[in-house]
């Protein structure tokens, strides 16, 4: 079977699961998802997110922008062009930018500095709508993350700026805001809770963070596209009745740093597969 046929078969199976009844009981849904995840493990090519990772690899290697160069000289922290294992050590402090960056922020930076691309237009609408594929920066991030799959989160967080952003992330995680008075902690500071039928991870607890943080970027079945961590955070802010949080901002990097540090030692299995 070709790669495409395999994932199409899996996807068709998933749709048939989703459409097989008006409302599936939670247990059935969970069982279905477990079966789907197992299929994915047996055959990694059943995850459509891998197609986006492939696209990301091609985009990384393709000359683009006013300078017509590829991103292959981009330094993700382990030296120019070193991709294997780089994601496992992000976010980290980059001396050339004098700030802490996660994978998506670093790609934006390399696009600007190496390729001469002005990101401002892209940043007006950096995430895909329902059904549309993940955008280019997200696809590249998905590929980079996949090149750390099987490794453990090991961001050092020792540089003063890394410590500073970690403290900011912790503060933001607890901060209640918006007309609903929500904070990240409203949904993610207890075990075994759910919204409607959706289970919620206790993200400030290492044992639970380790299980889920490494699945992002993930193919999200309900959105039928890969969602990156920057996009996932925007989605939480949407629910909190906040506006569109800026991709690559200090605030989103701080939240990524906080989650990754809490998930330290947890295994990366990107791209993951979510409901």
């Amino acid at each position: 079977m070709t790669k495409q046929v395999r994932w199409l078969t899996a996807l068709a199976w998933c749709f048939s699961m989703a459409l097989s009844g008006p409302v599936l009981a939670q247990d059935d849904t969970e069982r279905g998802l477990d079966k789907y995840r197992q299929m994915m493990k047996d055959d990694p090519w059943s995850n459509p997110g891998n197609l986006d990772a492939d696209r990301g690899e091609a985009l990384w290697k393709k000359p683009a922008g006013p300078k017509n160069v590829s991103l292959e000289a981009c330094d993700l922290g382990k030296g120019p062009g070193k991709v294997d294992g780089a994601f496992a050590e992000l976010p980290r402090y980059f001396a050339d930018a004098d700030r802490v960056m996660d994978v998506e922020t670093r790609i934006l930076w390399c696009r600007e500095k190496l390729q001469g691309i002005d990101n401002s237009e892209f940043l007006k609408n950096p995430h895909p709508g329902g059904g549309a594929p993940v955008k280019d920066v997200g696809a590249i991030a998905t590929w980079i993350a996949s090149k750390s799959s099987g490794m453990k989160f090991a961001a050092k967080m020792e540089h003063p700026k890394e410590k500073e952003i970690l403290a900011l992330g912790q503060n933001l995680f607890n901060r209640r805001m918006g007309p609903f008075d929500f904070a990240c902690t409203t949904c993610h500071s207890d075990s075994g809770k759910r919204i409607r039928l959706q289970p919620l991870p206790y993200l400030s607890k290492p044992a639970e963070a380790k299980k889920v943080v490494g699945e992002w970027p993930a193919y999200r079945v309900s959105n039928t596209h890969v969602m990156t961590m920057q996009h996932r955070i925007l989605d939480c802010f949407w629910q909190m009745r906040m506006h569109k949080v800026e991709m690559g901002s200090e605030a989103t990097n701080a939240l990524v740093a906080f989650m990754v540090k809490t998930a330290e030692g947890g295994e990366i299995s990107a791209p993951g597969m979510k409901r």
Partner: protein
Amino acid sequence: MMTRTTIAAALATTFVLAASVAWAQTKATFDTAKSDAALKAAFAKAPADWAGRLNGDETMQACSATNNAPDAAVAKIIQEREKASIKYPPDGKLVGDWQKGEKIAQSGYGLRFTDYPPKNPNGGNCYACHQLTKAEVSYGTIGVSLREYGKIRKFSEADTKAAYEKIYNGHAAFPCSLMPRFGANNILTIDQIKDLTALLMSPDSAVNK
């Protein structure tokens, strides 16, 4: 025999370990001006009238600073301040239409950036966190179950008033509650809050069946 150096090294290791374990639990004093600035930058493209959403009011600041566990003195200040925000229907009738209340409890519409210009009334999204009627099996568990809420309380007048107040502003009863202040923050109207009170407290309501 342990030399002074090895003891020192062992102690240092212990401190490093303790520090790495404890970092997530630390309640380090943090200059919230830094998070004010970070949020302002992160939402710089939001419409001007959204700016007020970045900074919680005094109560939210107190709750955030204590991870929603204020000490007794702070809790008392919050309760008094939030109690003062509660407005009652002019005619004094607290119980509306439970069937309308059920629709409000189901709806998560309102105040998200995708909800402008508004096409529907705001919802309370009660089912996101609470169990209510027997028929609705898709309910969340962040809040307590509200099954048979009125029946358990024998539909008493005092509990009806307390239910209205908890929906209007839960912090008057439970300081630093996780629940939105539906009345005080102008999420729901007084009439909608009456309908939700009916959903909980009306003997006819499916919540009490």
